[in-house]
């Protein structure tokens, strides 16, 4: 009898950089990003897929990286919060989050930014209701969302600064 395969070689592009790694079949994408690639900007806040702190873009789609296995991401292109300001110049969303005081502890912020980016990539002029719907999968325990919603709306209008 042959042993079941426990690991697999995967190739992914993360923030424009290609990585090949042998990963355990059960390794979550979020732990692959955090522990194997040392991209610790993507956070873990729950164990049930509710909090959205681990949100990243996989081939342009916002997903919770704790709900996806690393092997499922094989061949994909991933964007994390570390890829938002590659040259050190803040993305309009990042600028708006700081201008509108949309973060306190900053733990939900990376996931919140990636959900917001996904929204604006597909809907450049969202209404407040659309913004709230887009981030309803991202829990923030500090802000009550007031300033987050304002920041996303401002970034959409090009008023991040």
């Amino acid at each position, binding site marked *: 009898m042959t042993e079941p395969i426990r690991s697999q070689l995967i190739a992914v592009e993360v923030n424009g950089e290609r990585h090949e790694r042998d990963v355990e079949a059960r390794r979550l994408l979020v732990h692959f990003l955090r522990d194997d690639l040392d991209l*610790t900007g993507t956070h*873990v806040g729950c164990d049930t897929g*509710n909090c959205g*702190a681990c949100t990243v873009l996989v081939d342009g789609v916002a997903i919770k990286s704790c709900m996806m296995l690393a092997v499922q991401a094989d061949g994909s292109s991933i964007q994390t919060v570390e890829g938002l300001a590659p040259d050190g110049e*803040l993305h309009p969303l990042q600028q708006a989050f700081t201008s509108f005081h949309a973060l306190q*502890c900053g733990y939900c912020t990376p996931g919140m930014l990636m959900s917001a980016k996904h929204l604006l990539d597909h809907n450049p002029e969202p209404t407040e209701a659309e913004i709230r719907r887009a981030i309803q999968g991202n*829990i923030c*325990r500090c802000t009550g*969302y007031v300033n987050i919603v304002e920041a996303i709306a401002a970034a959409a209008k090009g008023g991040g600064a």
Partner: protein
Amino acid sequence: MSETTVTPDRPITVEETETAPGFIGVNVPRKEDRRLVQGEGVFVDDVKRHGMAYVHFVRSPYAHAAITRIDVSKAVALEGVYGTLLGEEVAAETDPFFQIAPPPAGELKDYALAVGKVRHVGEPVVAVAAATRELARDAADLVEVDYEPLEAVVDTEHAADPGVAQLHDEAPSNTIWQGNFDYGDYDAALAEADKVVRIKRLHFHRFSSTPLETSGAVVEYNRGTGQWTIHSNNQFPGFAIIMMGPALKVGMDKLRFVSQDIGGGFGNKICTHVQLVALCLLARKLKRAVNWTEWRTDQHTANSHGNERVFLDVEVPVRSDGTMLGFKARMIDDCGAFTRYEPLGCIIWAQVTPGVYRWRNVRVDFSQVCTNKSPCGPNRGYSRMQHLWFTERVIDIVAEQLGLDPVEIRKRNYIRADEMPYETPNGCVYDSGDYARCLDDALKLIDYGSIETRRRDAESRGKLLGVGIGSTLDSGTNNFGQSTIVNPELQFSGNNEVATVKLDIFGEIVVTLGTTPQGQSHETTAAQVVADLLQVEPDDVTVRAGHDSYWNSHAGFSGTYASQFAVTGLGAVKGATEMLREEILKIGAAVLGAESTEEVELGGGFVKRKDNPEAALPFMACGAIVNANNAVLPLELRDITLNCRYVYVPPHQLPDTERKYGNLTLTYANQIHACVVEVDPETGVYDIVDYGAVDDCGIRINPQIVEGQVQGATAQSIGAATHETFVYDEDGNLLTPNFYDYHVPHALDMPPMKTSSVESASPFTPLGAKGMGEGGGAGLSAVAAALQNALQGAGRPIVTSSSNPYHRVWELLQNPDESRSLVSVDER
């Protein structure tokens, strides 16, 4: 009955505010944000060490059981498992944690792992360390533990009844603490009353702020020096060290606490000393660094919960005009299975004994019980929130019973602005505030004048509209001397916080704080204060991120908790900066040939002669001279270091433990919230359709940051009022152990929120500021009051619980008389 005056022999320290107009009071952008929006913060699970082990705890599936056998052999046989830690090892190598309670409850034994018995579901029994997170879980599954289940004690009200199972063999009952609080002359007030309103039972439910980052640590042990470095998100290292040093039998210098960014705390990260001791033992035993990152389900099941409390046999003497003379009640607080910070909650409520009201006669029988539920610990608004919810329920129930207007009865009973500073019946001195003005402002925010029109509009749509008010206090900079009221043997009093400010060799201004911020923007507000005092820009000031107890910026009570940074933390920053300013002026005067420091001043990063601004010495030169060229200085200036440390100590005094009397905190910020709900009478489903929050925390250093705290705290209390609850079944199983079952507010759940502020400067603090951030509890009261108001047209049920999810409202609608039967009025 006593008069409402401040005791004349009580010294009150009024400090002058010396800082010139500048950056204080301005919305300076946060210094913390640049790293956090780029994912470049360092939270505890981001810390990595070579060969680090991952720790997973084997936890109890029973609420109450004897442990009869533990076998870890299969787990340690698994490849990649580094080792385990058992309760028997913990009992052999450590002393039980120091107890705040007096005997007999103070005799109970609390260790880092269960020893012989488990007392709540989720209690750690065995720790397993392995090469990966996944492997640690696999190995934990292979640990065999046999239990003999015991009767689970889950009912707060009856936990101390005769015949109920005992949690702790060393304590003779499940009562942890009991005390009688008697202020004014309650019997005389009762005799004088025209009416007496009685409430049989009110219940404040169990929930917690559930910070998005769970607890965790990376612990290293240096075998050569016997010193542990604890990278953690513990938010009160001062307390953790006081607990851990004796348990591990080491001095505090062997326990180095380090943190940078912390993903929310809200008090829930104060009591992690228990897990940290297990990690210290593992790091020493395994000779490698260990990482523990708590799973969300573990955080809900076995970390700090907010205290649950029942209020029984409440009695409120009232005059016909609505003047309330005080209250009497029996209160039972439920601290869960262990007393980790408790029974301090048994006195902390007394910081706000009469709430915001001129109630002079109070008689409370307060006790605390332990039950087979997760241990409680401080949770945003700790112990005062429960009590203030009680005072607000009392006022709205009295208003309802006597047919009085909720706004008018509040204004009749509020402490008035012209009575400040106001001494409460138990000796607390409310520093400043104008509650009636804040109420008017809150009512404006929700356009109170249009309520009757909106009520009719709601009715036309088949909905019931209601308005509610919540009036609360956020007492801050506590006097640890209050601990002696629960246990006169304790040797704690006062408070302190420390900061260092230095001007270094290249002219850089560097600030270190003793605090452990979790989103409270300390780097930013500290820079604002320093910038004003040294006449530079906040960008010129580096505030070190995080906390390190080896930085010499650690005082006994260092940490971030209990609404105090604007007072203690910034008080320390101000003190240290003033020392540094004086030293810079001395160097400048000497180098510029001035007769004294009176002839020079600071500006733009220079020391300048007042009579000739061209004669100026840059800060860089000051730093370079003192640090690297000091032979040029006259001998009498060689003691200048440009590295100044200041410990802020508030003007607290020892309380009178016999009378349970004294000023228990330094500042009393206040919040008045107003809430409008629309209820569907068919289903009990309701929406918060309008919400206004007014906050008065004295001088605001950075208004945007204060408003952020107000919004966040309000969201937490709305979440707690509407959905969040830790529900246990009769066997002690937690039914809401993660964010799937424990619903916290999402962006779509939040009502439109309006905020405004009033600034009543504190006369007692260095900057006129008050501690703030915990004031959101007003939302719990406002929602309860709004629901009761809305249901006036549906059988007039009385809201008796702080937890009001839709099904609870439906129950009130179905059987209003059940709740009404808990309330009565005696006419005299």
